């Protein structure tokens, strides 16, 4: 018989000689990395907003906060966010109910189509709508003026309402997806018993269904609110030309105008404090709402809900849903691809004016190729590093649970609630020499920002997976003779690998199309795909910007398809 115990005799004082354990190393590493990546940039913003040349001073904040431009930007931010939230919630709930509970035709396909805006980069949508409805040069506007002999453009997308409309079409899926799944998991007997008790269809919807999905609606709505408050792309593309600023775009403008000087960055830091304060209030409301809500009657398992017969309204509502899809998905997509083909912006969109020259130009211009390469490098490495780091932190928080693990958790999800613009300023302040490390104008600074920004994604997916791995699985390995490291390698890691991979893609995809932070962090040789599209457009090269935009869309669709195929195959096992 092979017996292990014989060997342990000469290991008598194992405990006494034991080196620092793996758990301690992982815990320390998590803390150090989060301090460097997350806490440093955030503290730098706070420091520079409140201290000037080592002296505490509120001058900067007071000066910035009392400016008319700041106040109007803040007002715009709040106004846009509230409008987007209200309308986004209405649209989201309506379509969730229509596609979740009625007998409208083509439900499952439409449900998929309604989630497309979720993966489509909003700034590309803004660009498309600008091409179509720009107050001076939009295709539709010029066509309307010519056809109906109007004296001025009937639509103006470069307005608060234009911004609201475009943001709305990309943010309503937040509410839509939450409510659809809540409707699905609702116990159908709750509604049936109301019907049996004599309530009409309308009363059931009002008195039973809506109150039950209220928690889902409010969490989706707050997600819209917070995303819109921090949103940069759409107001940047639609608002600049008309002098409409929100806080994130104002911060960008201040820094861009100062040419990256320290003073500009300090002003940006002060404005960031204001933006964070606004977001913090929204988050605080979210906490209160989530704490007060929640019903147990929404079950975890899927049930067969009662389907409501729309009768005569079936076809009109179907047409309405279809037209919504056409407007929010098809029109922008078609615009981007058509303008990408046109010889010059403004020429009619007819085959005679089409050319592939724009694609040729972007694929031969070194800047563009470089930007695709940069985005690829950044997305892959940010995805990979963040996947590892997120899993490490998740393991420490879920399995080791050291003192201060709550702090660790908070630190890792903190950047998620901090607007990307603010994070970028923090990263500039921290890593452009003031702490002895200068990463400015390199890819590294963008990478650091991406890691901080997306850490919570991989941390959350890995945490969920680790919770499924019962501690006895690892302990069984230990008693079978595996060291701590070996039990991690042989048991835990293989079990959470699928979650880690999906964590990777959860980061890779948004990183591929990122503009908000990279637009503040890029240098001459470190443009990203998003930044390049943005600058091409800024320089008036609409067809080339569109061509590059269409490339981005194709990339995103391809990767998404691969991810879905992978997920399907995994479920098949």
């Amino acid at each position, binding site marked *: *018989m*092979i*017996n*292990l*115990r014989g*060997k*342990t*005799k000469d*290991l*008598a*004082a*194992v*405990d*006494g000689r034991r080196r620092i354990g793996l758990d301690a190393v992982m815990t320390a590493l998590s803390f150090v990395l989060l301090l460097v990546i997350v806490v440093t940039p955030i503290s730098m913003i706070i420091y520079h907003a409140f201290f000037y040349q080592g002296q505490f001073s509120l001058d900067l904040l007071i000066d910035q906060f009392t400016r008319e431009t700041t106040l109007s930007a803040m007002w715009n931010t709040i106004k846009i966010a509230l409008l987007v939230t209200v309308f986004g919630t209405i649209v989201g709930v309506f379509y969730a109910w229509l596609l979740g509970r009625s007998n409208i035709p083509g439900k499952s396909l439409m449900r998929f189509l309604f989630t497309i805006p979720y993966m489509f980069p909003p700034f590309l949508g803004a660009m498309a709508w600008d091409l179509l409805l720009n107050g001076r040069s939009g295709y539709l506007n010029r066509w309307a003026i010519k056809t109906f002999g109007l004296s001025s453009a009937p639509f103006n997308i470069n307005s608060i309402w234009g911004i609201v409309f475009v943001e709305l079409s990309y943010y309503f899926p937040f509410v839509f997806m939450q409510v659809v799944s809540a409707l699905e998991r609702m116990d159908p007997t709750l509604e049936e018993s109301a019907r049996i008790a004599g309530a009409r269809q309308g009363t059931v919807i009002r008195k039973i269904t809506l109150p039950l999905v209220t928690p889902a609606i409010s969490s989706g709505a707050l997600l819209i609110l917070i995303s819109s408050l921090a949103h940069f792309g759409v107001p940047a593309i639609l608002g600049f030309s008309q002098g409409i600023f929100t806080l994130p775009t104002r911060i960008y403008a201040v820094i861009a105008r100062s040419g990256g000087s320290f003073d500009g960055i300090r002003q940006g830091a002060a404005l960031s404090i204001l933006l964070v304060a606004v977001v913090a209030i929204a988050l605080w409301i979210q906490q209160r709402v989530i704490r007060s809500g929640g019903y147990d009657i929404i079950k975890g398992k899927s049930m067969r809900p009662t389907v409501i017969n729309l009768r005569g309204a079936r076809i009109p509502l179907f047409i309405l849903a279809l037209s919504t899809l056409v407007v929010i998905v098809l029109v922008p997509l078609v615009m981007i691809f058509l303008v990408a083909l046109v010889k010059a912006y403004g020429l009619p969109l007819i085959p005679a004016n089409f050319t592939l020259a724009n694609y040729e130009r972007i694929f031969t211009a070194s800047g563009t190729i470089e930007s695709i390469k940069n985005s690829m490098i950044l997305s892959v490495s940010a995805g990979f590093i963040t996947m590892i780091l997120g899993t490490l932190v998740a393991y420490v928080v879920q399995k080791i649970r050291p003192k201060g693990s709550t702090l660790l958790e908070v630190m890792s999800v903190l950047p998620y609630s901090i607007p990307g613009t603010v994070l970028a300023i923090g990263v500039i302040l921290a890593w452009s020499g003031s702490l002895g490390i200068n990463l400015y104008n390199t890819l590294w600074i963008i990478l650091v920002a991406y890691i901080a920004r997306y850490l919570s994604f991989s941390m959350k997916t890995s945490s969920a997976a680790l919770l499924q791995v*019962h501690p*006895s*699985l690892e*302990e*069984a*390995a*230990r*008693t*079978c*003779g*595996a*060291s701590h490291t*070996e039990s991690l390698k*042989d*048991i835990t890691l*293989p*079990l959470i690998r699928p979650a880690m991979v999906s964590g990777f893609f959860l980061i890779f995809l948004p990183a591929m199309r990122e503009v908000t932070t990279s637009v503040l962090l890029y240098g001459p040789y470190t443009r990203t795909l998003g930044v390049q599209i943005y600058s091409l457009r800024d320089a008036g090269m609409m067809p080339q910007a569109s061509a590059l935009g269409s490339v981005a869309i194709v990339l995103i669709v391809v990767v998404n398809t691969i991810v879905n195929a992978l997920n399907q195959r995994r479920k098949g096992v």
Partner: protein
Amino acid sequence: MAYVRFENISFAYGDNQVLKNFSLSLEKNEIMCLVGPSGCGKTTLVRCLLGLNRPSEGEIWVGDTCMFSSKRRINVPAERRGIGIVFQDYAVWPHLTVKENIAYPMRKRKVPKQEIDRRVEDVLRLVRMSEYINHLPSQLSGGQQQRVAIARALMTSDDLIVMDEPITNLDAKLREQMLYEIRELQRNVGTTVFYITHDQRAALQLGDRIAIMDPKGDLIQLGSDEDIILRPKTRFVFEFIGVTNFLNLKRVDGQHKLDLGSTLAPWPGEVPQELRGGAVIDVGIRPNDIVFDRSSPVRGTVERAVFLGSEYEYFVRAGEKTLRIQQGSLDAGQSGIVREGSEVGLKFLNPYYYPAAREEAV
């Protein structure tokens, strides 16, 4: 010298002192069942033995190896203790096949491949799982997964296996069968088995010796099944082992009388010397130790009679107490079945006397 020794083990989760100066010894080749209610510290003790928990005090020995000693600062890491474990939730690794699961302990010890293959086949034959060698755990039933877990434990050690509630997740019929199989396996291999359970019946069925822990985590009785059933040391053990009736004796004028709430009845039994001073004494009686006796001064009314096949069960109201009485069908047939509503006299055959605890309706 005992094979496994826990000497004065203390362990606390934060402020919660789970084990205090706990000592217990296992002989080689025996099945020791450790029984106690949920949360009494059984699993904690096992985890200390395996090296997954670190006691604050005490020593743990397996054979002539000291696994843990707080004084001598010894704490052999879990992976070097070489103790087989079967967890309640099986802990069979879902991403590995049956063979890979079972071979894992050997692989970690760098055993040559042919040797591993041979041993895996042997042990699979032992747990009657040979045809499932290349299955994944998701393709196996609960009982089969449990067998894989046992096989894996045997691969870690055929000297000492710990089983922590291994059959709790199985259905009743399978539980019986697994208990029988564990017994057989132990006989064939000669392993020492440390079996942890909260189910006193499984313990009585399986164990050579049984150790009973109370909810505070103290060892109260250690002995054979007979010891435990016939000579329960405390009221807790008596209650824990089976269905019980508890009555109070009240001392009136130096005489102990049976307190039935509204009335006092004479108590014919002999109160042990050391308890005679108590104003109130608890008496425990098993349902099948109460018999009907017309001449008894203790009277009651049959409220309900239930026929269970091999026996009759009666619920008899005496004063303000309801007693549960069992009578074998054969006896009942001979002496006549007592109908609901009839008045009966009760005789108590095997009373167990304990110092008074808080009063409880049984």
